[in-house]
């Protein structure tokens, strides 16, 4: 999916050319891009992920907001072109601060500049890595019987065993997980278990779940970064490892699963690159709350709105999700991964996870 620099520059120049041509032809300059909303994502049968649909949004200099947007776009593409030329990269935050010097083209908040960087991906089909832009946060951590070879900043290849060579915090996934940066040398495991919270990840590490159940444990750190999702996808594709996602039992956690399995709305233009459609949702499900009699909290009004929103979300239209979400709305309850500690610290590793993994067919009885 990565592009060579020449290709990136020609795509970026394409944006400038479109604007320039509009002006020369006495037309009001405009840029078109896919509408980035829930209503405009649809399932791509070929890629098996959710992508943006046909609906387009036009940025036009006819409105003052649109004119500002186009000016910022011109500043940003110029900046990217320059970075490529001098072989530098910057974080999204650094670019936001650099934009302070863009006069009328400066941003009001970093959200705006992050959003525009994504827009440029959508318009050009390039990735922000191609633009020499990187995120603030790096990926999360990994523990399991896995050997990774990483090209360090000193340009040396270093092999890391993700159990023997790392501390209890695990191997930290870098923001770039492409083959030029890391490659998998050997894996001895049966499945990948992606875990939402740090507390649960640490519990499984302490209970040695990775060795007892031959699992690669990946900490998602909440909504997973692009590199974490890309890491899971590569590991899944290169070693045919099944993926199970283990989260809290609330609407926000279901979206974490959706971004891993189906593709996120914000990054639907690169879903095929980030999503692992074969991922399975392990729990905690609303049914688990009843089956395991877990301690609960009441759903807040935001939770209820989010659940109702998911009933409308095209990605949650299968019978499993419809039933579970409706069940949860009826119960009016939610729960956390760590609520399983009600039955003791080992309950999750000795009882809950084995039972659920058998249910998913990832473990034999």
């Amino acid at each position: 999916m990565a592009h060579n620099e020449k290709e990136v520059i020609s795509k970026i120049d394409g944006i400038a050319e479109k604007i320039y041509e509009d002006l020369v032809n006495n037309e009001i300059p405009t840029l078109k891009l896919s509408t980035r909303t829930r209503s405009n994502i649809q399932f791509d049968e070929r890629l098996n992920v959710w992508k943006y649909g046909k609906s387009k949004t036009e940025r036009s200099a006819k409105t003052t907001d649109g004119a500002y947007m186009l000016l910022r776009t011109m500043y940003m593409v110029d900046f990217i072109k320059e970075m490529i030329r001098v072989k530098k990269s910057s974080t999204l935050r650094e670019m936001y601060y650099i934009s302070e010097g863009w006069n009328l083209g400066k941003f009001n908040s970093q959200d705006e500049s992050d959003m525009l960087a994504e827009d440029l991906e959508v318009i050009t089909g390039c990735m922000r890595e191609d633009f020499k832009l990187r995120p603030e946060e790096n990926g999360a951590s990994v523990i399991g019987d896995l050997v990774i070879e990483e090209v360090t900043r000193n340009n040396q290849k270093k092999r890391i065993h993700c159990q023997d060579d790392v501390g209890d915090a695990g191997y930290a996934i870098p923001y770039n997980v492409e083959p030029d940066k890391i490659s998998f040398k050997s894996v001895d495991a049966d499945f990948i278990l992606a875990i939402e919270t740090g507390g649960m990840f640490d519990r499984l590490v302490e209970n040695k779940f990775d060795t007892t159940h031959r699992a690669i444990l990946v900490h998602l750190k909440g909504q997973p970064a692009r590199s974490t999702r890309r890491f899971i996808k590569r590991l899944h594709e290169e070693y045919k490892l099944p993926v199970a996602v283990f989260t809290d039992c609330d609407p926000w956690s279901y979206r974490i699963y959706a971004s891993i399995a189906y593709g996120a709305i914000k990054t639907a233009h690169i879903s095929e690159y980030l999503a692992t459609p074969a991922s399975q949702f392990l729990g905690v499900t609303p049914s688990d709350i009843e089956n395991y009699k877990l301690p609960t909290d009441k759903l807040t009004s935001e939770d209820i709105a989010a659940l109702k929103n998911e009933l409308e979300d095209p990605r949650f239209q299968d019978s499993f999700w419809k039933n579970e979400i409706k069940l949860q709305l009826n119960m009016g309850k939610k729960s956390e991964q760590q609520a399983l500690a009600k039955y003791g610290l080992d309950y999750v590793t000795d009882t809950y996870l084995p039972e659920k993994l058998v249910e998913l067919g990832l473990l034999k009885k």
Partner: protein
Amino acid sequence: MTEPIAYELAKKQKEISVAEFFERNKHILGFGNSTRALLTSVKEAVDNALDACEEADILPDIYVEVSNHEDEECRIIVEDNGPGIVKQQIPHIFGRLLYGSRFHSIRQTRGQQGIGISAVVLYGQLTTGKHARIVSKIKPDMPAVVVELAIDTNKNRGEVIQTETVHWDKPSGTRVEINIKADYKRGKRFVYDYLQSTSIVNPHARIVYRDAEGAEHVFERTSDMLPRKSVEIKPHPYGVELGTLMKLAKETKARKLSSFLKTEFSSMGDRTTDAVCSEALLDKNLDPHTLTREQIVALHKAFKKVKIMAPPTDCLSPIGEMLIKRSLKQETQEISPEFIVTATRPPAVFSGNPFQVEVGLVYGGNLPKDKPVKILRFANRIPLLYQQGDCISTHAIEDIDWRRYGFEQPNGKGIPIGPAIILVHVASTMIPYTSESKEAIADVPEIENEIKLALRECARKVESHINKKVRRVKTREKFELITKVLPEIAKKSASMLGKPIPSLDRVITKIMDVVWIEDLVEYEKVKRDKKPVQSTLLTTATQDATQDDGGWITKSTIYVVNYKSKPQRFNLYAVIPKDAVVGSVTPKPVKITSNYLKWELPSIPPATKVDIMFELAGLNKGDFDENDLYVEDINPAYVIGADKWEGD
């Protein structure tokens, strides 16, 4: 047999002296307390001075001086340049209550009851024991007379204590000096407010006020024209009371009922006279002197049943929109208001009394946005300073929902909150005051209705003004932005591609997509060919613009820019003040009326500007400070800076 008790009572029955009457009723005459007394005294003297000058066709120059002495004693001096008063009349006018020339006439004047100035003299005498001093000069080559005057309270007569003659520089005039007991500290604010307000509704008067601290305040004259002289009219049948009707019938020189009705009343022609007589079942040839009480009652009732034309309205003397605007502008200079709008209603009638309503509204500037609007009330050019809550003008304001015109007003009732001053002037031959102290106008539905109509007209002008401004500001912001941002976009894209920067005119035009109209008003001083002469408002606008005596030429330039992608062709109207005289106009208008100029503009290509220029004479600097523009034969939504022409 004892004497009937009535004889006993008769011994106590005697004429009440005016002094006693005054003592008991001083509150209703405006002398209720020593704060009010100060204002009332100044007011009565100034009202008299203004009336005297106007009756003699003289532009009033009024000097007012108040000095403060021990024991709450104030000395009030009011001097005018009026016609003066014949020596023999001085004791009657200043020393007799209920004596006057205007009480019996039906026309618009300030004072009416004949209580005013003599009440001040009496109050001064009762509270300080001092006599009034009157100076009067009636001819340039005669000396002035000085009269020291007291009031004989038993006889209700002026008593001349001493007279002398002195030299006085003025060609003619009157000067009144009266000592009264008054609270200067608390009353001085009202004196200033009253004189300022008086100056607003009397733009033809120059008032100089020297206060007790020695500071001199000058309220300049803003108009050299005397108000139209109000004409005396006969009573209208709708407004006449039964007693008055009886008295008129007894005193008339007419020998027949029909001629009595036609000569003693206004609006009575042959047909109405016949109609009234047959309605009253009276022979029109009856001798009016022989009418019985029953017959007069029948006649009085018949008046109400017959449709009688409204009384003539030339007995009224409104101030006029232009002069109200000019005065308000002069007096609100420190506020630097955004704009001033005015409305004058046509004359109307209540109970046979003609009246007319004028309203002015000052908006914006330094006026507080979070306070109730300030209300200036006037009746026959007299400021009403007290009892605001009881006055019809206040009630009319409170009754309008100002929220739709951009003001704040809880529940749409009460005095609105916003940066505005509202002026209401009611002119009438008979102002229906709530009391003798003449501080509030009573609630008469006909008058209230007219005030509301005028207020709404002003409010609409405010609303349209604000809307126009908002739209213009928005478009201007967009324009400024586009002319800054678009070149940046062009520069950036051109430099990235190593190409020349393209021209943007057409694109800017496409983005703006409006016809932009802007105006500029300038003033040019012109040499006067002759000294200004006193003239009346009745002068029609027939003078040649170049030899106008106003001294200022108003030059208005209108810029029309077509920011649409197609050529535009439309008609433009510029509204001009009625009293203005049109000078040179380019391009040539297709129509000039007393109200507007009309151009049929040639087709304007995209991104092209057209200038339109016209000159107005006969106006003061600042009278016309903003163009009121309208368009026709174009979608008004395309146009910024002008509204849709709705016809004349």
